[in-house]
């Protein structure tokens, strides 16, 4: 039986690659026995879903809404666009 810390490590690995048969079995067994790890696993999946949703909606979500491109930066970018259009 491995520890809860090791179980969370395997959960993370399983989100990035395929576990070995032994690892899969060991993790599944641990999750059946351990309510806290099972909860952590659900929450880790939730975090991943939230990140994917965030990526999907990147154009609509108002990130950093209290920041804007400064007027100087706007002018600079427009100037460089103009230069490049003319060349």
């Amino acid at each position: 039986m491995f520890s809860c810390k090791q179980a969370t490590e395997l959960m993370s690995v399983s989100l990035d690659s395929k576990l070995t048969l032994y690892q899969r079995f060991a993790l599944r067994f641990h999750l059946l026995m351990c309510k806290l790890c099972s909860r952590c696993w659900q929450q880790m999946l939730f975090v991943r879903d939230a990140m994917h949703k965030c990526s999907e909606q990147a154009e609509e979500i108002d990130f950093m809404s209290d920041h804007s491109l400064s007027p100087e930066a706007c002018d600079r970018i427009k100037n460089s666009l103009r230069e490049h259009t003319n060349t």
Partner: protein
Amino acid sequence: MDYHQITDPESWVDEYGDALFRYALFRIQDGQVAEDLVQETFLAALRGKDSFAGRSSVKTWLFGILKHKIIDHIRKISRERPEEDIETVANLADKTFDEQGVWKSQPAKWTTDPGLLFQQQEFWEMLQYCLSELPPRLNQVFTLRELDELSAEEARKILQVSPTNGGVMLHRARMRLRECLEINWFDKKD
């Protein structure tokens, strides 16, 4: 597709400049670099506008270019400073687990419907806050993996991190983010 929009690149700056800048800032957390990335995005769009087929909106197209610029930027700074950040891979066990690997700070029960959560601007602000609380390299490996949806291997190669440390960093980022959301969102809302 608005023909005017594609023929007048300067109007892109007024229309999409802020949205692109904010996204770049969210990813890179450096205003100067974010401005430069937005400028590079517009210039690349100008060069490529003839091949833009109008299959997506101008905004989606510009965001696509910016996301590539962000990845290139992270690759570049990682090449210039390829150190393995020991702090980010040091022991996670301190606060979360005891020496035997048993939970010290136990995960609480979350009882919010994700479907509703994802419609709330406040939730996204909290997610941004929690991401910004991660050390920069953890933030980068995790966002490359989960926002850009690169493979773990691609993400760690961009950051020039070994497979072992890459795995440890992703684990650590996931645990910290889980914990941050729990403390700042779920404890307060439930």
